[in-house]
C-alpha cells in the first residue's frame, strides 16, 4: 500500500513525477546499480553542529604566530591541547576523539567550505543541506536524493530518521515528511489513530492534504517498530547525560534493530559563540566528545560498528580575529570529522593558512561536497553526479 500511495502521488503531480520517476531510471543506468550488496546494511549518522563551529578552537594551529596574534581570550596553548603533530592540536576536551584518531578511526578533514562562502547561518546551512550554492531553490535536501539513488527499492519510512525536534533541510523530501522524534516511548497516537483505508490513496485535489496523509501513513507504519527497537536495545555503554548522548543511544538502538535507518540525523546547537566563547565552546566540545566516543565504543566489535559511518559538520567556521566580546563572528572554512571502524583515520583536505585570509576568514581548501561524494560512492555505492548534481573527487577516508 505504501508503494501504491507514492506511485499514485507521482502520477498526480508533475513535479512529484519528475523527482520520483527519476531514481527508477537512474537505478538501471547507474554504474553502481543503485547500491550493491556490500552497501545494503550501511548507515550514515550525520551530526550537525549548529551555529558555526569555531574550527580554530577545534583543531588548533598552536604554533602559528598568526593564530596567537589573532586569538587572545579564545586561545588554546599547546599545553592545553591534545597534540597531533608539530602544527596541530585537538581541543583539550576531545579526549575520546583523540584516542579514536590514534587508533586510526577518526578522519579530520581540514579547510572545508565552498566557493564564496556565505556567512548567514540560514543560507549557509541551505548550501550544506542541498549540496548546492543555490540552496533551497534546487528543491530537496541531499539526503533523500542520496537514499533514493542508493536504495531505490527502499520505501520504509524509517530510511531517514532525525532524532530531535527541528529537522534539518538536508532531510527534506518532495514527497514525504521526515521521521522525527525526540523520545521513542511517546512516539505513538493515544486513542485516536487516524487510521487509513484503501480509499486513502486517492488524491484529494489538495496537495498539502495529500502530503500530510503520507506523513500519517509513515507515522503509523514506523511507530511500533521504533518504540520496540528503543525498548529492546540492551547496551553496556554508559551514554552521557546530555540530549546528544540520549539521541546517540537511540541511534544505536535503531542501527542494532536493523529497521532500515540508512541515514540518522542529529543536531547539536549552541555553536554561535559571539560572546564569551572559550568556556561555552570547550563545554560543547566535551558534549560532542563524550557522546561520540561512547557511541563508537558501543558499536565497536559488532557488525553494527562495521556498518556505521559518522560524519560531523557545521555550517561555517568562525572569523580568525576575535570580536570585542571575547567571542568570534561568522566566518568560512572549518573542519569536518568522519569516524567509526570503517574509517581510514588521519588528516584529509588541507589546513587553511592563517597568513592568506580571505576578507578576514580562513579560505577553504576542500569543497564539502568531496566529503559528500565519499559518502555517496564509497559508502553507499551511489552515483555522485546523480545525487549532488555534479562530480566531486572523493576523499580517501573510507
Amino acid at each position, binding site marked *: 500500500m505504501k508503494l501504491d500511495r507514492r506511485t499514485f502521488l507521482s502520477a498526480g503531480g508533475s513535479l512529484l513525477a519528475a523527482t520520483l520517476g527519476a531514481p527508477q531510471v537512474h537505478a538501471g543506468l547507474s554504474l553502481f546499480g543503485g547500491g550493491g550488496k556490500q552497501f545494503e546494511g550501511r548507515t550514515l549518522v550525520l551530526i550537525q553542529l549548529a551555529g558555526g563551529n569555531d574550527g580554530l578552537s577545534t583543531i588548533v594551529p598552536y604554533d602559528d604566530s598568526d593564530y596567537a596574534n589573532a586569538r587572545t581570550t579564545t586561545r588554546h596553548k599547546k599545553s592545553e591541547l591534545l597534540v597531533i603533530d608539530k602544527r596541530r592540536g585537538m581541543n583539550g576536551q576531545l579526549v575520546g576523539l583523540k584516542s579514536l584518531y590514534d587508533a586510526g578511526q577518526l578522519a579530520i578533514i581540514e579547510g572545508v567550505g565552498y566557493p564564496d562562502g556565505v556567512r548567514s547561518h540560514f543560507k549557509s546551512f541551505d548550501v550544506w543541506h542541498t549540496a548546492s550554492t543555490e540552496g533551497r531553490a534546487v528543491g530537496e535536501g541531499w539526503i533523500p536524493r542520496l537514499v533514493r539513488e542508493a536504495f531505490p527499492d527502499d520505501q520504509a519510512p524509517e530510511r531517514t530518521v532525525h532524532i530531535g525536534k*527541528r*529537522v534539518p533541510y538536508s532531510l527534506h523530501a518532495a514527497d514525504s515528511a521526515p521521521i522525527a*522524534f525526540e523520545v521513542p516511548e511517546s*512516539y505513538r497516537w493515544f486513542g*485516536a489513530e487516524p487510521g487509513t483505508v484503501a480509499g486513502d490513496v486517492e488524491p484529494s485535489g*489538495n496537495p498539502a492534504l495529500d502530503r500530510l496523509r503520507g506523513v500519517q501513513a509513515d*507515522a503509523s507504519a*514506523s511507530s511500533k517498530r521504533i518504540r520496540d527497537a528503543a525498548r529492546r536495545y540492551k547496551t553496556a555503554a554508559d551514554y552521557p547525560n*546530555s540530549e546528544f548522548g540520549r539521541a546517540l543511544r537511540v541511534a544505536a538502538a535503531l542501527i542494532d534493530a536493523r529497521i532500515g535507518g540508512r541515514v540518522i540525523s542529529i543536531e547539536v546547537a549552541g555553536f554561535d559563540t559571539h560572546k564569551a566563547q572559550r568556556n561555552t565552546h570547550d563545554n560543547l566540545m566535551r558534549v560532542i566528545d563524550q557522546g561520540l566516543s561512547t557511541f563508537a565504543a558501543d558499536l565497536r566489535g559488532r557488525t553494527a560498528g562495521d556498518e556505521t559511518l559518522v560524519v560531523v559538520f557545521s555550517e561555517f567556521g568562525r572569523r580568525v580575529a576575535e*570580536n570585542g566580546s571575547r567571542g568570534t563572528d561568522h566566518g568560512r572554512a572549518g573542519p569536518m570529522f568522519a569516524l567509526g571502524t570503517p574509517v581510514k583515520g588521519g588528516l584529509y583536505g588541507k589546513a587553511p593558512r592563517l597568513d592568506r585570509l580571505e576578507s578576514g576568514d580562513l579560505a577553504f581548501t576542500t569543497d564539502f561536497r568531496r566529503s559528500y561524494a565519499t559518502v555517496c560512492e564509497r559508502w553507499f555505492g551511489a552515483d555522485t553526479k546523480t545525487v549532488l548534481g555534479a562530480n566531486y573527487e572523493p576523499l580517501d577516508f573510507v
Partner: protein
Amino acid sequence: MHFTRPATCFAALLLTLCGASTVAAQNGPQAQTEAASRRLVWNARTVEHLYNRAGFGASPAEVQAALARRPEEVVEELVSGGREVEPFYVEGPTPLQRMDDSDLSGTAKARLRSAIRNADRRQMSAYSQWWIDTMASGADPLRDRMTLFWHGFFTSSYRDVRRSDLMAQQHDMLRSEALGSYAVMLYEIVHDPAMLKYLNNDVNKKGASNENFARELMELFSLGEGNYTEKDIKEVARALTGMRFDIEGDYKFRRGHHDFGKKTVLGEKGRLDGEDVIEILLKQEACGRWVAGRVIEYLEGVQPSEERLDFYAALLRESNYELAPLLRSLLLDPDFYRAEVIGTRVQGPIDFAIGSMRRLDMRVPAGFVREGTAELGQELFLPPSVKGWDEGPAWITTSSLMLRGNLAGMMLGVVDLNAVFGDRMDRARKLARGDAPRTGGFDTPEAEVDDVMGDDGEMMGGDEMMESPDDDLKVRGKQDMPKVIRDLKGEIGANYIPRINLRWRMQRAELSRDAEIAGYLLSAGLAIETPEDLHIRLLGRLRGEREQLGVKDGELLDHPECEKVLRRAMHWVLSTPAAQLS
C-alpha cells in the same frame, strides 16, 4: 512605558525621505484594490479563510455574522483594530534585581539569583498565557495575528534576554505597531533593549565591534540576503556601537562606546549612526520587497508571484511603510482566495491550538496551551533562532503529527497524560529518588554549557521560588523531569475536566442521526472544507461505537455514554491530517 520615542517625528521625516507620491498612492494600487474587491467571491468558505489567516479561525456563528456584511466592511474592521485589551501589568526590575549582591556569600548570592530567576520565569510564563488568552478571545484578531508574525520577524528570545520585563516591553511595542508602521517598528526595534541584548549589541563597541545585530538587521529585519555586502555589515556594526540600555529598560546611547568615524553603508557616506542606518535601509527598494514578501508569504502560505510582489512592495513604499493599505488590499485581493491558498497552509502549533479552541468555542487553560504548543515547537517568547519559526510543512514530522492528536485528546479529556508521558514520568521519578543513573532530561545541549538554558525547562516552576542548594537532589530530579510532563501535569493534571458539552450542542441544533452528528463534528473541528472520505470514515466510527452501545441510529444522544462518544469522535477529527490545515 519606559522611554519616550520620537516615533511620530520619525514617521514625519520618512514622508520626505521616501519621496512618496500621494497621488500615485490614491490612483495606483488603491484604485486597483477596489476593482479587485468587486471580483471577490464572498461565501462561508472565503469568510472562514479570511478569519483563519487574518485571525485564528472563527466559530460558525461568527462566520454567519460576517457573511451578512460586505467584505470591505469586515476587512476594514480587522485592519483598523478590534477591541482594546487590558494590558498585562508588567513588574519592572524588581527590588531583588536592583539589589547589590557583591557583599553576599556564595550561597546567599546563588539563592538570591535563583529567586530572581524563578520569579522572572513566572512572569514570562504568565505573560505568555495572557497573550494566549487574548488570541483566543478574538478581541483583536488581525492585530494578534500580525503580532505573532512580527514576533517571528523581529525575533528576540527570552533564552538570551533573560528579563521578562524587556521581552514584554518589546512585545508591547510590536503589538501596538502591528497594524501601524513598519518604519516605526524598525526604528523601535533598533532601540529595543531586548533586541540589543539578544543580538549582543550591548557589547558592540568602538574598535571592537560585534557584527551580530548588523547582520541580522539587514538579512532578516529589512533587506534580505543578497542586498548588501559583507563590508556593509562591518560598517553598520560600527554605526550601531554605543546603542545600549540601562537596568530600567530604557534605551541609552553611550557616547564613549560609539564609533564616530566615517562609514559607508550601501553607498552612503558620513559619520553614520544607528538612526542614519535606519534611514538608509528604508530608502532601499529591497526593503519594501522584503517586508511585503514576508507578510504575504506568511498570510497566504505560498510565495507571491513577482507581479504581485512588485505591486505590494510599491504599495508599501508609497504609503511610507504604513501597513494598513497593504493588509487591506491583500485581504480584499481575489488572489488571496485562490485555490492554491485556501485550505493549503499547514497550521503552526499556535494556529492549531487557538484555532481549535475558537472553532470549538471551548476554553482551555492557557498554561496547557503554552506548554503544549511549546512541545510542538512553537514556544512563545522562545523562538528557535533569530529567524523565528519556519512556517508551513516544516511544522509537521511524524512525531509532531502524533503529538498534536495526543494533545487534542488531553484537551478534550479523553487521553490521559500519564498514558502519553508515563514512561518519562517513571524515569523522572526514579531520577528524583536518586536510584537511577542520571540519563538526563531533554535540555538542549546548551543547557550543559549555560545555566540559563537549563532554566529554559522551568518557566512554570513556581514552587521552586525558594529552592536552595540543600535541595540539590530534589531539584536535580525536577530539572531532569522533562518540562512537558512537569508543566502539562501542573496545567492539566488528573483534576482537569474539559468545559465542553457536545451533547447539548447536538440537541440544540436538533441533530441526532450519525450522519448529521459526523457532519457537525467535522465542520466544527476542521478549518477547511471537509474532505469527503473523512465524513465516510467518521460515520463508520460513530456507527461502530453506537452499535456497541446497542442504540439505534437517531438515539445516541439519549445514551449516558453519549458525551464520551462525541468527545472521542472530536478527538479523532482533530487528529486527522485535514485538521492540521487552514
